[in-house]
């Protein structure tokens, strides 16, 4: 409320009363005191509204710089793009997925579809038919007749285009040409960005769209004084579409959404301020406009790509097994259609969904006493067996003794009994601890010849989790819930000792919601689909897009979280900014060549230092302002927090969330954050060496008060230090270039010199 106005006044008084004692930035022009709240001070100021702070000569210079940097970017990305003519690292996945699109066969991946479809489209345009499956790292492209250069050209081009976007974003944010060029230069000559964007991978698209989002948002923010104009709408929608495209490449795009989201919320909060004199209706208009442009449109765009995804992938393929039965039935050539309805009296096999073992029993009993001294029931063993065997057959009965249901179909929630055919005994669960898990119940069988006193222990309810309400082979996943003790029949990849023939343990699980409780019946003895099955039609079914989307999205998320298997090249986020560890992408034994993903070490370490400077400067500024001392000129301070701070927030949001992720992480996950850190680096360089700022840079609106032109002073030392930084960065880039491009092999001694940190384990270092 009142406080801000008061503080501004205070600054004014401070600035005039003790201007001569301001040591830090004493060279500022006299007009530095803020003018927006103090009407008397602006009385003398020119009433001219400034269109642009930059002269036409400056604009030409900027264009020349932009063109030069773009050319460098293209050269760096396309240099010897034909080498190696072999599958490199994750081209194994993404090349393969592009092929599947071209074939139209359904596949499953944890990432949204856009980037892979772009690759496929590229392949389509250059006449690639998707015949190659990119199975192993090192498979030869030329031998397999794959137009890989064309496929790589797309990511390389977008990787190169990221550079002019970085330049223009910085420029739009009001930084001098030197600063913008510095940021772009660092992005061009970073080894990780080069390596990762010239191969058939997704990160190039990700970073490109991410920069599109940031660029559009900066343009949008600059039009804020003219709300609801065409320009305002255009840039806002461009922002919305860009964040949607980013997210459609990888879910990491959500970090970009968060970055922009924070900026938008802050902006709205400012608009809500009573001193902005917006009525509630006007404020809500602002709110709804943003809801449409930055939420609704992005959601539609994101869904659109999934729609295209499903429209292309109409054939059954390697991704079928990830999906539900209903989903698979929508694909041409799916196996679900072969399912037969199971009837009472049928002899069926029952297979565990996760571990693919059959429910099995044989004429051997549990040992009376286990190694740990516990006693068992010594009943017949029930195990999980992975091969086909007559002992896997179970005859299905209903729970009434007269068996009146024979010949009828088994339905969901039916209570059944299972008779082991080979030994004529009923499957049974009871309150005895299982062989290896004391918390779970033992599963055994009980002979048909004994009296019926244990009838209640042999009844199980069949609960279908998918595939309709009747039990069907292949199609229905079900749980077997023991009626009297409420446990589900369950198995896990744990082998029994010798007495159990190293087959898998089967027991009764008290946790009924676990996914691993699911079983399916894969066969009925003596029947097959072509013979009897009139009920099931071979026709491909349809399913609403939204259901398909929700299922796929859920699977993507759960699968992504499940990628926890450790990988020799995985690293933890804390190591990334310091580049503790690299990733070996590709090696060739004869020539001793290697592609080793590692950033430009000197550049990245300078970037980390600049991030530390940001924290230090803002901390010092905060403390001194708390003591009533304002060390930064107001415009410099504003630029520092609004522009540099925004990039810093971008870095935070694209980096910190990785610490909360449980999955295996890799160095290349740092790429988006790395681009932000280079922008921060350039901005910090400007903060240190360049006096003042160019301004105003935002469009003036009808209510904008006249503002005075301010120009940044770029001293020689700024150019000198900038050139030194670029030289260091370029030198470091060239030094590591052989490992980034994989075009020539350094000697053993050469590799030893390139081993800056102990964990950079080059393959041919010995």
């Amino acid at each position, binding site marked *: *409320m*009142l*406080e801000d106005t*008061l*503080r501004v*006044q*205070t600054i004014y*008084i*401070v600035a005039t*009363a*003790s201007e001569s*004692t*301001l040591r830090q930035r004493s060279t500022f022009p006299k007009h530095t005191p803020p003018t927006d709240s103090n009407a008397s001070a602006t009385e003398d100021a020119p009433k001219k509204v400034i269109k642009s702070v930059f002269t036409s000569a400056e604009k030409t210079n900027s264009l020349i710089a932009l063109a030069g940097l773009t050319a460098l970017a293209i050269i760096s990305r396309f240099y010897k793009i034909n080498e190696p003519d072999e599958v490199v690292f994750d081209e194994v996945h993404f090349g393969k997925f592009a092929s599947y699109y071209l074939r139209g066969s359904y596949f499953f991946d944890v990432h949204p579809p856009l980037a892979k479809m772009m690759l496929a489209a590229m392949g389509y345009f250059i006449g690639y038919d998707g015949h190659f499956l990119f199975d192993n790292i090192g498979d030869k492209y030329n031998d397999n007749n794959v137009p890989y250069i064309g496929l790589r050209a797309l990511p390389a081009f977008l990787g190169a285009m990221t550079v002019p976007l970085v330049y223009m974003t910085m420029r739009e944010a009001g930084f001098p040409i030197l600063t913008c060029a510095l940021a772009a230069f660092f992005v061009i000559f970073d080894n990780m960005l080069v390596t990762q964007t010239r191969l058939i991978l997704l990160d190039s698209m990700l970073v490109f769209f991410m920069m599109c989002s940031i660029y559009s948002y900066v343009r949008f923010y600059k039009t804020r004084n003219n709300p609801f104009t065409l320009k305002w709408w255009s840039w806002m929608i461009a922002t919305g579409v860009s964040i949607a495209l980013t997210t459609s490449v990888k879910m990491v795009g959500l970090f970009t959404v968060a970055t922009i989201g924070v900026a938008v919320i802050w902006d709205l*909060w400012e608009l*809500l*301020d*009573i001193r902005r004199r917006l009525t*509630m209706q006007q404020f809500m208009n602002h709110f709804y406009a943003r809801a449409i442009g930055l939420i609704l449109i992005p959601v539609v765009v994101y869904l659109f790509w999934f729609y295209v995804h499903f429209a292309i992938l109409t054939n059954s393929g390697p991704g079928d097994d990830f999906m539900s039965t209903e989903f698979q039935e929508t694909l041409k050539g799916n196996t679900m259609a072969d399912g037969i309805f199971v009837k009472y009296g049928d002899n069926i096999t029952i297979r565990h969904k996760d571990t693919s073992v059959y429910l099995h029993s044989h004429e051997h009993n549990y040992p009376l006493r286990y190694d740990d001294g516990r006693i068992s029931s010594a009943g017949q063993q029930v195990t999980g067996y992975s091969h086909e065997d007559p002992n896997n057959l179970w005859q299905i009965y209903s729970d009434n003794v007269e068996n009146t249901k024979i010949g009828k179909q088994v339905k969901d929630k039916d209570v059944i009994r299972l008779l082991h055919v080979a030994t004529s005994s009923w499957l049974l669960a009871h309150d005895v601890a299982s062989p290896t*898990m*004391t*918390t*779970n119940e033992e599963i055994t069988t009980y002979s048909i010849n004994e009296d019926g006193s244990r009838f209640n222990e042999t009844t199980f309810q069949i609960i279908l989790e998918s595939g309709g309400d009747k039990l069907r082979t292949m199609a229905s996943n079900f749980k077997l819930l023991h009626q009297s*003790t*409420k*446990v589900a029949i369950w198995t*896990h990849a*744990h082998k029994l000792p010798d007495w159990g023939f190293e087959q898998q343990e089967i027991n009764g*699980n*008290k*946790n*009924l*919601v676990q996914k691993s409780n699911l079983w399916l019946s894969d066969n009925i003895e003596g029947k097959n689909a072509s013979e009897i099955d009139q009920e099931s039609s071979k026709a491909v079914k349809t399913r609403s897009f939204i259901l398909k989307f929700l299922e796929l999205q859920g699977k993507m998320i759960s699968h992504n979280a499940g990628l926890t298997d*450790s990988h*020799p090249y995985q690293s933890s986020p804390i190591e990334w900014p310091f580049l503790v560890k690299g990733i070996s992408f590709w090696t060739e034994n004869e020539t001793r060549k290697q592609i080793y993903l590692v950033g430009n070490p000197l550049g990245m370490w300078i970037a980390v230092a600049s991030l530390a400077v940001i924290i230090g400067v803002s901390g010092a500024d905060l*403390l001194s302002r*708390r*003591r*009533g*001392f304002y060390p930064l000129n107001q415009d410099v301070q504003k630029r520092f927090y609004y522009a540099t701070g925004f990039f810093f927030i971008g870095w935070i949001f694209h980096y910190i969330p990785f610490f909360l992720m449980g999955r295996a992480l890799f160095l290349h996950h740092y790429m988006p954050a790395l681009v932000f850190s280079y922008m921060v680096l350039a901005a910090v360089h400007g903060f240190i060496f360049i006096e003042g700022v160019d301004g105003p840079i935002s469009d003036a609106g009808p209510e904008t008060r006249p503002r005075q032109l301010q120009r940044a002073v770029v001293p020689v030392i700024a150019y000198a230090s900038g050139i030194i930084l670029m030289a260091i960065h370029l030198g470091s880039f060239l030094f590591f270039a052989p490992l980034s491009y994989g075009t020539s092999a350094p000697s053993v001694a050469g590799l030893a010199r390139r081993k800056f940190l102990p*964990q950079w384990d080059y393959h041919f270092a010995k």
Partner: protein
Amino acid sequence: MYTSENIKRRNPVGSSFSRDQGHQQQQDDHHYNSQNENQNRASADPYGPNPLKPAFQQQQQHQQQHQSSVAAYGYRDHYQFGYAPPRKEYSANKYIRFYQENDYILIPTLLTLVSFWTRFRDIKSSDYVVWDEAHFGKFGSFYIKGDFYFDVHPPLGKMLVGLSGALAGYDGTFGFDSGAKYPDINYGFMRIFNAFFGAIMVPLAYWTSQELRMSQAACIFAAVLVLFDNAYLTISRFILLDSMLLAATCFVFFCLTRFRNERHDPFSLDWWLWLAMTGVAIGLVSSIKWVGLFVTALVGLNTIEELWDLFGDLSLPKTTYVKHWVARAACLIALPFSVYVASFALHFAILRNSGPGDAQMSSLFQAGLNGNDFRNNPLYVAYGSKVTIKNTGYGGGLLHSHVQTFPEGSGQQQVTCYHHKDNNNNWVIKNVKSEEVPEDAGSPRILRNGNLIRLGHEQTNRSLHSHRIKAPVTSAQWEVSGYGDDTTNDANDEWVIEVVDENSHHPKDGQLRSLSTTFRLRHRVLGCLLTAENVNLPQWGFRQIEVTCDTRNRTNSPHSIWNIEQHWNDNLPAGEGNLYKSKFWKDFWHLNVAMMTSNNALIPDPDKEDVLASNPSQWPLLAVGLRMCGWGDDAVKFYLLGNPIVWWGGTLSLGVFALTVCYYIVRRQRKFQDVTPMEWDQFLSAGKLLVGGWFLHYIPFCIMGRVTYLHHYFPALYFSLLLFSFVIDHFVNRPGVSRKVRNVVWAVAFTAVTFTFLFFWDVSYGIRGPAAETMTSRQWRGAWNIIDDHKPNTFI
């Protein structure tokens, strides 16, 4: 609060201060012009905004303006600083008048008496060892007997259990086996001793609410919430640490709020008293369980906020500011730390005898315990000796192996570090094949610096072995395994002894002595060092410590340095005590690291379903209860379950508070004054403490990988209960709310809590007879296993 009056009070020189001080500041820091300030002060309206003062001081002034209007509401009828409490109108009836004059003492007394009654009544109803009494009763016994034991919790709570046993005349001989019937010991007294701590939570809640400036009805309600929560009641009535932990947490929070209310009068006697009390209290709570660190964090955050506020007070002399820092450092860091250390000093002083926890400690410490026979070890270690080998790192264990194999890597026999003594820790020192020296050539050959040895595991005959295979957890280092035997062995079984230090009065001759000599074991082929770094193996390794061969050659790391602990060799004479005493600080630190390591090992086993464990997401809405004992029909059964109304209300109030704050903030941005600045400040500062306390006691459990139980939520619950009362208080004491509505709301709240408590009476005081017959109506949520043990795990 730093009003101008207060500044004057602190600086008797009065107005002359600001001029002198101001000039100095201007020269130092380019502060604003003090003349300006003085002019402004002189000329401006005393309540008018002063543009030269920081914003928050403006607000303070603003508040003063509004104080009188707040007082005019008249509902805050208890002590409040800054203005005199409104005068009470006393009744003519002398009894009522007596009550009115003395309610500040009568109400808490009455609450405390009821609390004692609920906590103490029928406390001996179960004459068997219930739930974790098995642990803590046993630990108490160790103090009575003086046997050294090891546990993951700091010692204070268990020493108090020991004290209660001693007072009850218990001699420490009972084993406290789970479910065992108590023999002839006064367990009732021990339980009452514990229940006392649970009971004093009630008056503490009352007084804390007062310090948070709640109305009298709200203070009573907060106390009643604590009083009638079944979970607090149940957990307090057994020999456990939780009642002490809870009482100490409540006490810390009480001290904190009390201290906050002294902030207008810094460095006064009361200010010092409550600051010091806060310090002592956090020392006590941290010495009971490490969970106490969460409330310590709350105190820490509050301190940072206070110091930040003071930092912005430009009128505060720098020396005074430094004094604020020093006072807090002394009282909130040094003092708690001393209390914590003192509890360990007492722990070591009481436990003088060798006991089950020996192996957790360094060899020298163990040698100093009564009943330990290390002193009789033969002094010099020779080829053919049987030894146990101890890691000298803090928290280090004994080199261990067992028949189980690595499930990955080489698949050979596991080698680990283990903290308990068993025969699998025994190793035999053998010579290597390449050196043709007979092992029993008359006199044994003494080991020296640089000797090559092979270490044979006594039980399995495998040799200590390493190779170029990645270690299972620390994959940057090589795996260490047990491989081969006396006939099949290779160069990868050979280790070089490097003597590091000889803590002995004997000459430094490079000979290996048991206990006193420390040494490294370097792999001859790989050149790496045998290392154990407090990294727990997964479940397949029984969560023992991983042993690796470290290639980094960190020769100074204590985790790569070992000593011989026990030593048997029939051919050598027994040693005669030659020992340095271990140092207290080393032992203290060693024990703390060991506690940390064991705590980290308590992570859930994915293969086993633990029916007692629960997930943090289940707690706030009470989706889970906990059976504290066997569920036989004849047994008196206790079910740890909160009062649902209390728990749900507490959780709901968190949401209501957050929404209310958002509402007010948005409205303030539009210049609507829903509450006076004074009320807003009060609402926010009390709410901040309560929500912060809840958050700090709850969220860490969601993050940490450790196995969690329902009772871990209890400290967090306390904050949500106070917030529950606080939020109701805020809404019923609004200007638009009539007295009638207010009374009805309170009546409903009190009744609901009381009746739910009575309804769940048996759950806390013991279910007698088959649970299914009597408890069906108490089964409010599907996942509670009061009756049926086969309920699915549900979240939230």
